[in-house]
């Protein structure tokens, strides 16, 4: 045989194998549309570097909320419930919702960040009430258990895991692992089940959502890592920590690691306790409903950059990108519903006092991948949450999973990746330098093995990087006393953000917002002294 021909064919084989599906992948890739979505980088830089002009106008309101994430929107809603309708909310971005914002295209709505909420337990009545008011909970059964609106409960099948070349149902590994591994995982889950119903010496549950309503039993607060040796278990625990905190289990406090497993005590008449509620837009659905109630009082594209206390109130300077001017907002009370490192900057020279700028935030990348049709794959059928065992990403959530159409066709996959390979600051820097093509190629390569030929089905990929996505409960953040102090109002300036709850969860944001609104009204009515 012709030796050159042979080398040529060999080279061909390598090239073909390297490209994945077919030798014409490059052409396919060039066809895929999309780009980087997300916050206005220019506004962000100006906020950091102080490049905004002096105010040229003044407006007044009773309560000014800064930040239109769940915490800020929940503040506004609670103020309304308490009959204080004279408030205004300033939000940096065009869309409200913050980490719970969402997008939509011709195929589906899709989340840009937060996508689900577990059934709220007895420690989070604020969330239960909100769900009743939004029609997520539609009634009670004779035992008093809440009846959830079936469409909003995550449809079955909920999860699958891609491992050893095929999809298995559920994400707790069970295929191709030894009996010993399985026993270890079962023992772990059983232990977590016990912890879930255990209470500390003060009679409170050991782990609760919100975290502040957990037991203060010192034996448990001092909890350090339990040794878990099984590699499969290790993977599972890592997956869960990365999922909730954006960092693997070796970087988060053991208390937080256990909290993931042992804090959910929700119940429902028509679903098991571990069920979750979700929508095609993810938590963007909730943000949309809250925003709808707020109406014109939400002012988007506005960067608040300075907060000062005044006689009988507080003043916020904010750059209104639409009108291209800075407005001085006078208010009797201000609620800063922004992350603490942002609040620290707004507060000026002594803003960082008490460790306000000391929180660690995990960066994330979220991509919405629009497909012409459902991607083929071996094994279990598509689920809501589709996890890849051998990947730095967490896999994807299928935005169309909650749709009721009988024949699924086009779909949007929301792909999640905590950027936790390096320390957060380093990962953030690397991520901000990466172009769209590089994310696109990484995502296609990552999804290739589980979905052969997926590149041919992809219509567009929209990518968003969250530089400071989630507060990371590194050792100390939860219980060294910092949080509690930072959550206290400074004069007429109140604070409400999920990071003050200790963990980046919908429930924390919601409870923080409700608490801030109640504090404001209590101050107002003179129930709390200045």
């Amino acid at each position: 045989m012709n030796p050159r021909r042979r080398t040529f064919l060999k080279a061909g084989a390598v090239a073909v194998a390297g490209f994945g599906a077919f030798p014409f992948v490059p052409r396919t890739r060039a066809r895929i549309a999309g780009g980087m979505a997300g916050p206005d980088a220019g506004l962000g830089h100006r906020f950091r570097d102080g490049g905004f002009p002096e105010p040229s106008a003044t407006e007044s309101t009773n309560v000014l909320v800064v930040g239109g994430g769940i915490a800020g929107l929940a503040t506004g809603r609670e103020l309304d419930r308490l009959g204080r309708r004279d408030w205004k909310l300033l939000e940096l971005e065009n869309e409200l919702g913050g980490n719970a914002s969402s997008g939509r295209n011709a195929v589906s709505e899709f989340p840009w960040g937060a996508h689900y909420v577990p059934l709220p337990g007895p420690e989070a009545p604020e969330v239960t009430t909100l769900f009743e008011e939004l029609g997520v909970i539609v009634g009670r059964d004779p035992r008093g258990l809440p009846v959830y609106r079936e469409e909003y409960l995550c449809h079955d099948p909920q999860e699958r895991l891609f491992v050893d070349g095929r999809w298995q149902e559920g994400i707790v590994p069970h295929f191709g692992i030894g009996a010993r591994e399985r026993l270890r995982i079962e023992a772990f889950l059983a232990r977590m089940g016990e912890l879930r119903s255990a209470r500390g010496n003060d009679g409170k549950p050991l782990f609760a959502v919100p975290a502040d309503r957990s037991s203060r039993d010192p034996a448990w607060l001092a909890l350090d890592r339990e040794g878990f040796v099984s590699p499969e278990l290790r993977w599972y625990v890592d997956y869960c920590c990365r999922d909730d905190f954006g960092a693997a289990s070796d970087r988060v406090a053991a208390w937080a690691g256990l909290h993931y497993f042992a804090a959910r005590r929700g119940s429902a008449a028509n679903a098991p306790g571990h069920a979750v509620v979700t929508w095609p837009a993810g938590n963007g659905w909730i943000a949309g409903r809250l925003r709808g109630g707020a109406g014109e009082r939400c002012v988007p594209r506005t960067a608040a950059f300075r907060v000062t206390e005044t006689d009988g109130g507080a003043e916020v300077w904010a750059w209104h990108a639409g009108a291209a001017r800075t407005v001085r907002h006078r208010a009797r009370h201000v609620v800063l519903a922004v992350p603490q490192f942002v609040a620290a900057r707004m507060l000026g020279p002594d803003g960082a006092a008490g460790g306000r700028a000391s929180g660690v935030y995990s960066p994330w990348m979220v991509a919405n991948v629009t497909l012409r049709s459902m991607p083929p794959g071996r094994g279990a059928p598509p689920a809501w949450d589709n996890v890849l065992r051998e990947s730095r990403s967490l896999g994807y959530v299928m935005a169309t999973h909650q749709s009721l159409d009988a024949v699924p066709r086009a779909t949007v996959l929301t792909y999640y990746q905590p950027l936790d390979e390096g320390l957060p600051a380093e990962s953030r820097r690397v991520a901000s330098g990466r172009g769209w093509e590089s994310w696109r190629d990484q995502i296609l390569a990552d999804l290739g093995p589980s979905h052969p030929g997926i590149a041919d089905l992809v219509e567009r990929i929209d990518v968003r990087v969250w530089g400071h996505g989630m507060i990371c409960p590194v050792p100390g953040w939860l219980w060294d006393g910092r949080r509690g102090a930072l959550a206290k109002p400074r004069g007429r300036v109140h604070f409400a953000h999920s990071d003050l709850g200790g963990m980046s969860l919908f429930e924390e944001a919601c409870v923080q917002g409700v608490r801030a609104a109640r504090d404001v009204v209590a101050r107002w009515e003179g129930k709390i002294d200045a």
Partner: protein
Amino acid sequence: MTDRSTRLLLLASVFVIATCGLVYELVAGTLASYLLGDSVLQFSTVIGVYLSAMGVGSWLSGFVSRGEARLFVRVQFLVGVVGGSSSALLFVLFAHAASFRVLLYGLILVVGILVGLEIPLLLRILKDRLEFKDLVARVFTFDYIGALLASLLFPLVLVPHLGLVRSSFLFGILNVAVGLLTLRVLGDGGRWSASMRVVGLVLLALLGGGFAASGRILAWSEQSTFSDPVIFARSSPYQRIVLTRAAGDLRLHLNGNLQFSSRDEYRYHEALVHPGLARFPRAREVLVLGGGDGLAVREILRHDNVRHVVLVDLDPEMTRLFRSQELLVRLNGGSLDSPRVTVVNADAFSWIEGATNRFDFAVVDFPDPSNYSLGKLYTTAFYERLGRVLAPGAAFVVQSTSPLVARRAFWCVDETLRASGFVTEPYHVYVPSFGEWGYVLASREPVPFRFHLPPGLRFLDPETTAGLFRFPPDMDRVPTEPNRLNNQSLVRYFEEDWAKVATTP
């Protein structure tokens, strides 16, 4: 012909052969990935097998001591036929071959060996016409360029514009053409050459026919999955619709699943409609969900009290077919064109959400809950919504798969309806082409057990009808979990129950 032009022609054929050789390899690899998935694995093994087969081919060429030119022509014809029809063959046989991989690699081996024979043979044919140094250099250059051309042509032109089946026929034609050309250049003009020329021309015609008929090859490949002749096949965006007909028996298959046989569909449809509707002599507005074949509507229209039927079927192709195809219109009595009928093409779930009508009776005739998308149409969430478009005192019937084969699935539908707040009356019937089949009648309040059957029925009379509601012990109620969006218990029961039948012969 001058020696120079002969040489040139032969070198040109090196080029064509090289292109063809690589194209077959790429076709096999692509097809294997299409049909078997896991493209990296498929491509690697296909290329591996192909390369070693070529090695075998060139090794075999060592055993040829004379008559290279004749052998070369034969090889060209063989490669043309086998390689050219390979992708059509693989497509057609995919569904049937017990071991598709054996067939696939068998074909690759044959083509590989033949392609491996080509170049050594040509080298030997040319060796008397060129200096050895030149010979090697030129042959290898053309071989190399041909392969390069193929690797570019295949992804950029062939696959997107011609498709796999047509591409391989095209290159089969080229191989045969090279054979014919060689015959012309090197042939001795004798009887052998003449007869080979005829063979070559016939092959060209056959491959040309294959090329022209490529469009229909996929349809043929489908034909063989049905035992009866296919008289109609079309893919709508939602499903594959296939009609077969043999000895007066017309059958409809959706995605390969039998929907009805014209021999006994009257049993299925009479039982679907009348045991419920005949108890509402004053029903005026009737809703049908699914059932785009118009056969349930045909039964409903027998009730003179019914003024208006709304049929909601997802697939416009279905309702169009059952309105226009003569045989089908005869079967459903033109029901879809009746002035009393309104046809809506929409997704049932979202249509109900927006509907403002109030119906006295509804027929729910969806495909079996064989996947999670269809399973949603059998959930408490769906039945609760359906309840909102029913008039007070109304009822509806749900086709509920086989209580004998999928016993838990059947009783799960019943349980789901009860969990949605309805009173139920399950019943069943024997349909020869389906077997024992079940339905559940549901209403907010119990319905009087009196049947006002319309005239003209072939299967039901009052006594038979009353008997349908009795269940013998082997089909009787079993406890099940109601089917909800968040547990899809029905799909699980359905799969497990039917899997048991599929594994016991």
